């Protein structure tokens, strides 16, 4: 099926990846909450969640970074030489267990600067999660840094 993602026509660094459907699963959320040491029942307990104003089990905000955003064509950012510089999220609502989100990403900017005599490249990636009604649930912006040469390979 074809889906449009906001911003595709703005003509910046690259195109949006083909959106990938992500289902937010209870098991994955619980494992993630455990891994960040967060015992909040909001992330695990249906009965607890029923008495909250959203009435649904949620995922921790940074769970968004675990989702599959599809492939950035021609871009390889999985190299070990990369360091995470900045991270930003903007949420229209929390993430819920059971959410089916279409996630996509785009390389927004690549800049190389010399820092302390070393060529340092900053990659800015935009990510988005859109629900089945086409509403943007969240956007994320990630800056990864490569020290000592090479841009995006």
């Amino acid at each position, binding site marked *: 099926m074809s889906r449009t993602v906001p911003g595709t026509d703005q003509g910046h660094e690259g195109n949006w990846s083909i959106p990938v459907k992500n289902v937010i699963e209870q098991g*994955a959320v619980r494992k993630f909450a455990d*891994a960040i*040491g967060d015992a*909040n029942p909001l992330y695990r307990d249906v009965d607890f969640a029923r008495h909250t104003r959203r009435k649904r089990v949620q995922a921790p905000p940074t769970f968004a970074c675990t989702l599959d955003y599809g492939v950035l064509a021609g871009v390889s950012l*999985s190299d070990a030489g*990369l360091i*995470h510089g900045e991270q930003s*999220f903007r949420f229209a609502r929390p993430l819920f267990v059971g959410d089916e989100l279409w996630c996509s990403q785009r390389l927004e900017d690549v800049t190389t600067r010399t820092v302390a005599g070393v060529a340092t490249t900053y990659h800015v990636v935009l990510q988005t999660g859109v629900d089945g009604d086409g509403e943007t649930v969240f956007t994320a912006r990630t800056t990864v840094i490569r020290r000592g040469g090479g841009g995006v390979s």
Partner: protein
Amino acid sequence: MALPERGQELPVLRTEPVERIDLVRYAGASGDYNPIHTVESFAREAGLGDVIAHGMLSMAYVGRMLTDFMGDEAELEEFTVRFRAMVRPGDVLECHGQVTDVAAGQGAPVVKVQVRAVNQSGETVVKGSAQLRYAPID
């Protein structure tokens, strides 16, 4: 429901020491298997000396401070951090937050918070900001 006040400090969240097994667990739970976080020999060859924690793990600790503070009263609207220093096995992080602004207009109160995480030496490892939305949901 009482809104937070400008200048108010959030309750400090102090982590347990970040252990190697925590990084392995976070790698599995997040899908971030970059070996600089889990394989010492790899991290050494990469010039890091030893494994370093995932930046997103530190951000998650700060996020936990925020969600603990908000409870069911508010929701996270915006959350931004800059990773300032590496976190290594054995480090203990303290997450701090302070309300910098309360905008109560339009029946949609937004509370801005400045956040940071510092290690046991007092070095800031994460610095950023967040916006908490106290508006009723529809």
